[in-house]
């Protein structure tokens, strides 16, 4: 009876969390061979919800990091990895948005927030792999992992650090050097990023001439 109860508790916790987990969304993407590169075009507008869209106008910077991974069809090891960073900040005195994109040398100024959203969420001919890494006839797929305002590991470690600080130690110190560090109960969690979007393309291949 006790065993059944324990299993039920674990399953219940697991099922709650799985429903809350980040999911990978299949999306049809457009691939083109351009020069030595394979480039992709798609949209990532689902990254923004109402709050994230409103935050574009706060005057604080918003950052989007787009990570792309090209996988062979039957492998979990990517053969090509790329990263692009896009940023925007609202100039509250000029009342314009300053947008910095990965393929432009200088930031551009944009008047309307909707235009900013379009610039940030359109992936247009972004290189994802070199053609020499993609043998003809073999099947691949692309996974795109997009992070809004990602938090670097050092900052996360600093924020979470207070968790591992107790209220000082008692008389006995030796015990703390052995065993589990897990002794903290209630705590808030800082997410790795404000929002995460994971997309996966349809399978693709380079046709033999």
């Amino acid at each position: 009876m006790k065993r059944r109860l324990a299993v039920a508790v674990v399953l219940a916790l697991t099922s709650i969390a799985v429903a809350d987990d980040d999911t990978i969304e299949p999306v049809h993407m457009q691939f083109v061979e351009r020069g030595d590169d394979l480039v992709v075009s798609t949209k990532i507008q689902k990254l923004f919800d109402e709050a994230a869209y409103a935050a574009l106008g706060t005057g604080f910077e918003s950052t989007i990091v787009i990570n792309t991974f090209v996988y062979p069809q039957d492998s979990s090891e990517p053969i090509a990895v790329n990263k692009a960073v896009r940023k925007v900040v609202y100039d509250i005195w000029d009342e314009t948005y300053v947008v910095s994109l990965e393929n432009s040398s200088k930031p551009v100024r944009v008047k309307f927030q909707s235009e900013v959203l379009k610039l940030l969420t359109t992936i247009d001919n972004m290189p994802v792999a070199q053609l020499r890494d993609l043998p003809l006839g073999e099947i691949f797929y692309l996974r795109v992992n997009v992070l809004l305002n990602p938090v670097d590991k050092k900052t996360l470690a600093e924020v979470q650090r207070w968790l591992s600080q107790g209220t000082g130690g008692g008389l006995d110190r030796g015990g703390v050097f052995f065993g589990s560090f897990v002794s903290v109960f209630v705590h808030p969690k800082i997410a790795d990023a404000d929002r995460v979007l994971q997309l996966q393309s349809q399978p693709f291949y380079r046709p033999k001439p």
Partner: protein
Amino acid sequence: MRGLVAVLCVQLVCMASAFADEPAGEPSPPLHEDDEFGPLIAIEAIEISGNTATQTEIIRRALPIAPGDILHASDRRLRDTRFKVLALGYFRDVTLAMRKGSSRGRVVIEIHVVERGTFVLNRLWFGTTNVSPYWLGADVGERNLLGLGISIGGGMVYAAPGDVEGSRSQWAGELRLADPSLYGSRWGAYGSLTLVHGSQPFRIAGTSSDDPGDFQAYPYRRFGGRAGMTYDATVLSRISAGLRLEEISAELPVAPTQTLPSGQIESIDLHLDPGSSRVVTADLSIDRDTRADPILPHSGNRIMAAAEIGSAAIGSDYDFATLFARFDQWWPLRNERSSISFHISGGVVVGDAPQFDRIYIADVDPLLTPRALGLVLSNASPLDILGTRADKPMYGDLGGTVTLEYSQQIFRGSGKNRVYGGDWFVGVGAWGLADADELKLRDASVWNSLPIDLYGDAGVRVDTDLGIFEFTISNALGRFR
């Protein structure tokens, strides 16, 4: 010439740091997260709202920006502001906004915080063994006393007397107070008071049985405290130094002995002065923690080391020194969905240390019941897996563990359902505990004399808003054995 060398060195350092930040095989992105752009702004004022319990000054001290600063709108300090406030640990959420100041280019920063409960349950003690038919206790804390940023905490545990001759009701209480950042500086202070009313079991017959008849207990009382200072050498490293003063009263049996299976009787050293004695020590420790997630870590490492010295020169009845160290490293696998971790910890006690400062067997063997606020709650012998020395000591002055663990993510959530994640893990390790004297003198083969053995552990760790739950073999055995 020296100038050229200096320039070359600077170039090499720049190249090395750029290389370190760049994933192998990737083309250099034209834009980095740390690049600054956008308009230059001058901070005219910083307005803080939403804090009802926490004093505004506590928040203001944590900010990396101040009125009068001139910076780019994308400056890292502005981005870090939210996390610096969150790092205080007193808020569930922090939102930032900016509005126009009194003249062009000047801005007012608005920081709105949502406070959270800062009362925490650190530990629950309960279980049943031969030594105590039941024990019960809890350790709780408040991390933001009266909104001053001061942590206060403490615990109480009660253990009913068991069948061991001479045992009595045991109880212990502890009160702790700490300010991790005095006036917003890198310096902190801590202090604690502990009172223990216990009975300490020791073996009088046999070598490895758990039979209460093979044990006897003597009553003791400990009262004392620690106080010290901390210094944050970096954001992830802390150095601590402190003093400890403790009074021990023990009613020790006269000439305690242990009857061996062969019938031979040998005397036992209980490592305490009879009657009243005093322990005075000075300690120094360092702690560096780079784990992004201390609950379900898949990367980073943690190093801890501490030395403590007690001497007649500072008023102690015990001349001794202890040195403890611990190192943990997690290597991420499969994009941090799983990890291999290596854990090594050890300690050495030199000199005439009181019993309570020596290494207890459950400190090193996770499959035994750990002490609760110093109270010994079990007399169970460790599992004999290797067939090494049968009469492994309850206490030693040289001990340690080495563990290799594999953990894998079962799920990760965003916390919307109050569940952040879960991992399953499996680990194996070796532990050892010995008296240095016994290592030198032995009357059996090397293998049969080795005070080491193996242990294994497996289970599930679930990280939720309500707490971190461990469903593990060691956790279960540590409560009922």
